């Protein structure tokens, strides 16, 4: 189990993951989108870092603040999408003292279902749902927390990779139809980075 109050280092690892991949995410988005995904994500995550790096906060509170910054200061598509995911996950987890497989599943599941209230995308539509949804599923099976986290990472990576052959149905790239195949989805890629760094950050405490 991982203590909710140990959230800071996990959140900062997530921040670093996005910052280091700013250019890469921009490139991925540039191929079939408008190229700003790295920039938007980096800006939001860096504002969070700037504002909270000298504060202490729990995992759930950190997620909430990060989501709120994306939602109320960044906008774009990522504001409502990641804003909803993080804030809904945080609300589902704010009362946990300790977080294990079941608790993390509860949180991410809440994020996913919050997202599904605002977007219509399903698995297979070449969006970040293709990363998040299998990652949540990987947490459903009872396993020790560390194995679960490794499975979650694998599921997220597989989900991201599968977006490569898909045709985009939502977002900017949807207009490309067949021309959208052959490259990863930007949101699926950033979501994979987020879930991976989150898992790595938690594992440091296990």
């Amino acid at each position: 189990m991982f203590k909710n109050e140990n959230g800071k280092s996990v959140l900062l690892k997530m921040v670093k993951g996005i910052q280091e991949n700013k250019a890469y995410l921009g490139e991925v988005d540039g191929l079939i989108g408008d190229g700003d995904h790295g920039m938007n994500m980096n800006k939001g995550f860096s504002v969070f870092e700037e504002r909270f790096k000298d504060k202490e906060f729990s995992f759930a509170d950190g997620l909430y603040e990060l989501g709120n910054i994306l939602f109320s200061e960044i906008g774009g598509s990522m504001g409502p999408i990641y804003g909803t995911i993080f804030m809904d996950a945080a609300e589902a987890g704010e009362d946990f003292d300790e977080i294990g497989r079941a608790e993390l599943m509860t949180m991410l599941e809440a994020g996913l279902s919050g997202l599904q209230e605002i977007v219509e995308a399903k698995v297979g539509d070449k969006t970040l749902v293709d990363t998040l949804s299998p990652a949540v599923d990987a947490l459903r099976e009872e396993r020790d927390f560390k194995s679960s986290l490794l499975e979650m990472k694998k599921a997220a990576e597989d989900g991201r990779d599968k977006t490569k052959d898909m045709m985009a149905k939502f977002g900017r790239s949807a207009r490309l139809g067949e021309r959208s195949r052959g490259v990863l989805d930007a949101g699926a890629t950033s979501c994979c980075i987020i879930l991976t760094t989150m898992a790595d950050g938690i594992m440091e405490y296990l």
Partner: protein
Amino acid sequence: MQRILNNPDNIVDEMLEGFLKTHKDIVSKTDNKRVVKARKIRDNKVGVVTGGGSGHKPAFIGYVGENMCDTAAVGEICSSPTAAAFLDAFKEADQGQGVACLYGNYSGDNMNVKMAVKMAKREGITVKTVVANDDVASAPKDQLEKRRGVAGEIFMWKAGGAKAALGGTLDEVIGAAQKAIDNTRSVGIGLTPCTLPAVGHPNFQIKEGTMEVGIGHHGEPGIEVCELETAKEMAKRMVDLVAADKPFEKGDEVAVLVSGLGATPVMELYVLYDEIDQLLEKRGIVTHRSYVGNYFTSLEMMGATLTIMKLDDELKELVDLPVETMGLTQK
């Protein structure tokens, strides 16, 4: 990247400072630094709000002013404003008669507007929306709901803003704006890519000697890439695409807008417009009013868009109403 910048991450806020200082007779700040408000707003009218990503000057804040939009929510470059900014824009524009939110069909804007409308409802403000989808190149005709909003949004704001200024109810304003966009079609041709300041290099390429037909305002690829053509040929291609879609036919009265995408010399836009005008005349389409210039741009992209709106008596009256904004002043 040969650009005039400080830290690219702050460009939107810095731009707003300069914009508000320069146009202090037309617009003013609000408590939300990402919401700009018209100085002169008639009393007791329906609020008219727009918003969108930055980098399209004069859009969106350049259309805030008397008889057009009352407020605009401002996003990052090529990125929707936040739901919070849209909500504040609604609050600033609301005079108790309801608010018409007239914006373009992009997934970010759709999500943020939707959330803001919900939040506004909770605060007792009625907001109705019209989503511009004038870009014929962005989806087939049987999927109108998937099409992007591009320069046709200007006609939507003009019509909606005028209707509100003339005392229309919320439903009348929404009706006028919807009618405007339903009667409007656009298409763009891109000649060079554009570079987001924070990215530092173009995120797509247009090969020298070719052009991207149907390009979007963020460089979204269009219908086809073909060899660079003369102004006459480009005009024909654009008129053929746009006129067939509505369709615009003999005897129709129209408003025409030719906008540069940012870096094309305005001189060339007039050359293009002259060709377009000749083609419309040949088709028996009557131009009531035309606009040529940089009305809706994509940073420093080269190329142009053509927008045509079919007019009836109501739309004609609305288009002709005087207006004073940074992007469009009409006596």
